[in-house]
């Protein structure tokens, strides 16, 4: 039916949406469930809709309406489908799909632009528990700088009939030469059947900057899952350290020498600096780029840019300096204070953000003082003044 409907052509621009994209259900024998979803009239126009079901669960799903219409004034329209599951299904994931397709409102014989048909799908996922104990997991590694903690996360889902009483991971870390540089065991957790829990381990990265590979064995009551992931210590980053300007004279071409540090353990090639100078309305008044440079690993390189200051007035300008390399870029927002014979760059090497912990500290101090006063008043009364009055 879907294919036949696909032959229809409709006029005007199409836009169609559906929410949620997916509904997930844990299997129970003979489960009857009503699932609602909304069709979104993203194009705000009158629509005729056809609803259909397909996928391996299609025989267990019936939609509330096979067709319906949505008026241009309706932002969305609610529908539902009922799921009547059998008494048994094979363990694992089973899926079904509910299609919603927009039908043509007119034949488009007036010569307007003709467009194809759109359809959107909301999915039904049914998880059937595995016999006994069964875990599924993956490894997520959060990169860190040298000397900081790399966080390893193992989200564990208990997909078996019974609870997992003991789940832990053994992790080995290898460098680029495939030499083992570290290994550790995580803590142990329990995961009830059908639930998801996380094992989290923080590993201190006392190793050189670079790329590493983590090989983990996630061990649970009745099985082992092998996982592997790569991660980085340090980041492939170029950082602007300072800008020096020699012999500045307003109206002439200024030479800006920008010192850039490569914090990565490999050569970064083809990097350049783009500088945008903006007026107080945020409009770009001047923009210039340096030549391209290759920056050796863990070293510094001077990038030279030239700024033609003809027509530039004395004043302070917001300036965006971007170091671009490959698909990445590192941006710093600075201020250029331009005078007749001087250019001062504000923002490098300074802490611009204000300390905003003051209010919180005051609250803590007030709380502590009041609590101490209360304790003193109580002690004074019950152990001193009260006895004297007696």
């Amino acid at each position, binding site marked *: 039916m879907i294919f036949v409907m696909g032959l229809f052509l409709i006029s005007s621009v199409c836009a169609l949406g559906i929410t949620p994209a997916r509904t997930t259900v844990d299997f129970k024998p003979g489960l009857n469930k009503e699932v609602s979803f909304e069709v979104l009239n993203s194009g705000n126009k009158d629509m005729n809709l056809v609803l259909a079901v397909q996928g391996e669960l299609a025989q267990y799903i019936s939609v509330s309406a096979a067709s319906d219409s949505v008026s241009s004034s309706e932002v969305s329209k609610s529908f539902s489908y009922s799921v009547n599951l059998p008494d048994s299904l094979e363990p694992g994931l089973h899926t079904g799909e509910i299609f919603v397709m927009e039908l043509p409102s007119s034949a488009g014989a007036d010569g307007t632009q*003709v467009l194809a048909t*759109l359809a959107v799908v909301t999915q039904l996922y049914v998880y059937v528990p595995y016999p006994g104990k069964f875990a599924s997991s993956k490894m997520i590694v959060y990169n860190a700088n040298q000397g900081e903690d790399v966080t390893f996360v193992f989200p564990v889902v208990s997909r078996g009939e019974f609870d997992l009483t003991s789940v832990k991971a053994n992790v080995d870390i290898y460098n680029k030469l495939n030499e083992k540089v570290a290994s550790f065991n995580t803590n142990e957790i329990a995961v009830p059947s059908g639930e998801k829990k996380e094992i989290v381990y923080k590993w201190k990265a006392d190793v050189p900057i670079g790329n590493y590979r983590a090989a983990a064995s996630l061990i649970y009551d009745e099985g082992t899952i092998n996982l592997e992931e790569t991660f980085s210590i340090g980041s492939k980053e170029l950082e602007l350290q300072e800008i020096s300007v020699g012999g500045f004279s307003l109206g002439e071409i200024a030479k800006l020498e920008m010192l850039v540090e490569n914090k990565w353990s490999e050569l970064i090639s083809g990097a350049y600096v783009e500088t945008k100078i903006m007026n107080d309305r945020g409009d770009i008044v001047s923009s210039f780029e340096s030549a391209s440079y290759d920056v050796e690993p863990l070293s510094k390189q001077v990038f030279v840019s030239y700024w033609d200051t003809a027509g530039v007035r004395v004043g302070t300008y917001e300036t965006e300096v971007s170091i671009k390399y490959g698909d990445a870029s590192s941006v710093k927002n600075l201020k250029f204070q331009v005078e007749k014979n001087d250019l001062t760059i504000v923002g490098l090497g300074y802490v611009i953000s204000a300390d905003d912990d003051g209010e919180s500290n005051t609250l803590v101090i007030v709380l502590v003082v009041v609590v101490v006063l209360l304790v003193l008043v109580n002690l004074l009364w019950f152990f001193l003044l009260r006895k004297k009055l007696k």
Partner: protein
Amino acid sequence: MEIIYKLDLAIGVVSLAALIFLVGWGTPLIIAPLDDYETLDGNVLFSIENADGLLIDDNIDFTTPVEYVVEDGLSISLEPGKYYWKAVGIFGSEVRTLTIKSKVSLELQKVDEGYDVVNSGNVRLNVDVYNGSKLVGVRSLDVGESLDVEGTKFVGGAE
């Protein structure tokens, strides 16, 4: 003797009231979003007082929370899913949940000989491309990504 008991009571009541007030004063005040908040919009505006930080996690145990500094008009962009969040200050707040509902949405526009298909939803899509009744391709589309393709029917579902 009666005066002493009255003073006992007065000091006890005042102390208790002061402690209750202090705990209330030091506890973060969560104004928005409401508990069990559901939305299709991935940008969520938080309104919190008396707090330094906001923790958001997809796990109620907050094992790997993302921490934000609380400020006026704090708006956080989240992907579809269910989240647990709480404010932290001198004391911690209650844990609330919010859900960013997933949305499949396609837009279609005629371009030259083919069509421009745009993923205007908030999840990555698989788009089945048909020419007549024949499936001629399956393409992945990131959120906001467009696809210049020839075909007569496009079916979008979550990847």
